[in-house]
């Protein structure tokens, strides 16, 4: 197959990938979009086989590896519970990163197969591209592994910080850049291996200081990195499909990180440098515990909601942990039968990844046109009778609007306190991730329901 023809088909795949993302602009077109993506991938793979033109023994092995990998992927895709989506995505990112590293290594070991020159005399541009691809890929790999371990709960979600951490990262980063320069001069294999090794270490160091609730930013960021790694390899291989995809994924991840940071009113660097609340934990918590709290039970909650005309549900990470989404849907079904208008309010950073709550609600068969984003629904709290906060905390804290001293001041929050009464399902009065007390607990119109999110919701269903 001529190189020009295959380049044309790679362009076609690239366009199909753009259409795949475009499809996600609405749930109706999204399924079609996914088929575009699958078509683009199929074309890319077939064209590669045709342009390599080697259908001997090796081809059989390629198919075998493809099948083994595909089977593993398919099994994971069907078995994985929706609540485990964040760690699945983190795990998948690590695979892309490692694949990029392997391809770069292979290109370095056998440059003539990729038309990049010969060993010891690889073209300068290719050398820069492949070492950058390998470095970013390695950072993506080890960073995603750490994110995976934190999300899975194998590793504590608490930020791990030590003195001189940022300086160490800076030095390692500069070392990588210097080594890439040195690699270009010397073409030495040892330098190449050192770059890969240091990049693995940097990936770990970058993610350990970042706490659990900042994971939405981290996952988006790693998503972005995996794209840039792919683009780097795309330049090395002179492959349009890979370059286009890398750019798409890279900018997609970057935009998601931006949206997540904005949802917390924090700069990207503030998140990346990590350790929110670890240093300036509120010291007055002892005094605050004395404040009176209204404590309610499932019957009170059921009574309030049954007599309401509109209820807004505010889900958070706690709902995911307790797997309460199905019980919640049941509760809403009963309420709707009683003529109560119910809608859902989702904060951009609720959960552990962008859109986490939406997927869980969709899993529980909640129609997506009952689920609203912060800007769409925030004005409705003033006209709503009951706000049911389930597993969310910091994103409802009115302190973010009133107290300039608070670490979360300026963060966009849901105006939950404006509704006539607030039902707050929580296991205890402990502060949320930001380590600050939620003023909402002590408001007159707040009724605290101390229980596991799922159990409480089930009990409410019973007493309804």
């Amino acid at each position, binding site marked *: 197959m001529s190189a020009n023809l295959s380049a044309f088909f790679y362009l076609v795949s690239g366009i199909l*990938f*753009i259409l795949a*993302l475009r499809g*996600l*602009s*609405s*749930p109706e077109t999204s*399924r079609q979009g*996914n088929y575009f*993506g699958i078509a683009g*991938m199929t074309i*890319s793979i077939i064209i*590669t*086989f045709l342009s390599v033109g080697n259908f001997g023994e*090796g081809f059989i*092995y*390629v198919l075998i*590896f493809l099948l083994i*990998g*595909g089977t*593993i*992927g398919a099994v994971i*895709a*069907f078995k994985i519970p*929706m609540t485990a*989506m964040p760690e*699945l*995505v983190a795990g*998948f*990112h690590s695979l*892309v990163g490692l*694949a990029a590293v*392997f*391809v770069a290594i*292979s290109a370095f*070991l*056998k440059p003539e197969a990729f038309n990049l020159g010969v060993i010891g005399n690889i073209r300068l541009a290719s050398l820069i591209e492949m070492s950058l691809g390998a470095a970013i890929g390695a950072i993506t790999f080890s960073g995603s592994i750490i994110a995976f371990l934190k999300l899975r709960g194998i590793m504590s979600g608490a930020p791990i910080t030590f003195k001189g951490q940022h300086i160490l990262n800076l030095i390692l980063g500069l070392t990588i850049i210097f080594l890439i320069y040195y690699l270009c001069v010397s073409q030495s294999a040892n330098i190449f291996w050192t770059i890969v090794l240091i990049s693995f270490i940097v990936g770990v160091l970058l993610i350990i200081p970042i706490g659990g609730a900042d994971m939405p930013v981290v*996952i988006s960021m790693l998503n972005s990195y995996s794209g840039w790694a792919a683009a780097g390899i*795309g*330049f*090395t*291989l002179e*492959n349009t499909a890979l370059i*286009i995809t*890398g*750019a*798409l*994924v890279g*900018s*997609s991840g970057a935009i*998601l990180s931006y949206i997540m940071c904005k949802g917390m009113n924090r700069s990207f660097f503030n998140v990346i440098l990590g350790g929110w609340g670890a240093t300036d934990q509120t010291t007055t918590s002892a005094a605050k515990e004395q404040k009176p709290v209204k404590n309610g039970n499932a019957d009170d909650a059921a009574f309030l909601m049954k007599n309401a005309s509109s209820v807004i549900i505010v889900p958070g990470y706690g709902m995911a942990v307790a797997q309460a989404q199905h019980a919640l849907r049941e509760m809403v079904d009963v309420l709707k039968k009683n003529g109560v208008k119910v809608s859902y309010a989702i904060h*951009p950073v609720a959960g552990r*990844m*962008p*859109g986490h709550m939406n997927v869980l609600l*969709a899993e529980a*068969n909640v*129609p997506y*046109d*009952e689920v609203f984003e912060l800007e769409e629904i925030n004005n409705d709290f003033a006209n709503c009778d009951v706000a049911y906060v389930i597993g969310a905390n910091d994103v409802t804290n009115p302190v973010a609007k009133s107290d300039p001293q608070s670490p979360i001041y300026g963060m966009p929050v849901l105006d939950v306190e404006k509704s006539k009464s607030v039902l707050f399902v929580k296991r205890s009065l402990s502060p949320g991730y930001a380590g600050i007390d939620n003023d909402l607990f002590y408001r007159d119109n707040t009724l605290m329901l101390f229980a596991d999110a799922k159990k409480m919701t089930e009990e409410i269903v019973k007493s309804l």
Partner: protein
Amino acid sequence: MEIDPFIFRLSIFILSIFVGYYVVWSVTPSLHTPLMSVTNAISSVIIVGAIIAALAGASDTIFETSNIFGFLAILLAAVNIFGGFLVTQRMLQMYKKKKNK
């Protein structure tokens, strides 16, 4: 003077970043999780490089070190491709509109 082909690839790259920017901003926030899983699936198009790496060279020397890295990369990318697209499909199937009575 001739233009280096690298410049053309760089042009494609930069224009694609812009396309990505506008396309991703138009994605509805409720589909951000499927967006992540599908971008993850398509970035596995790196399998193209893996296949070239695996099949490079004569077939009697198929298991040189560089080929083995190629095969491993195929395995990893394949997990991602199938896993990524299928899990996206599974999620998208769940998004349903309110039934109009």
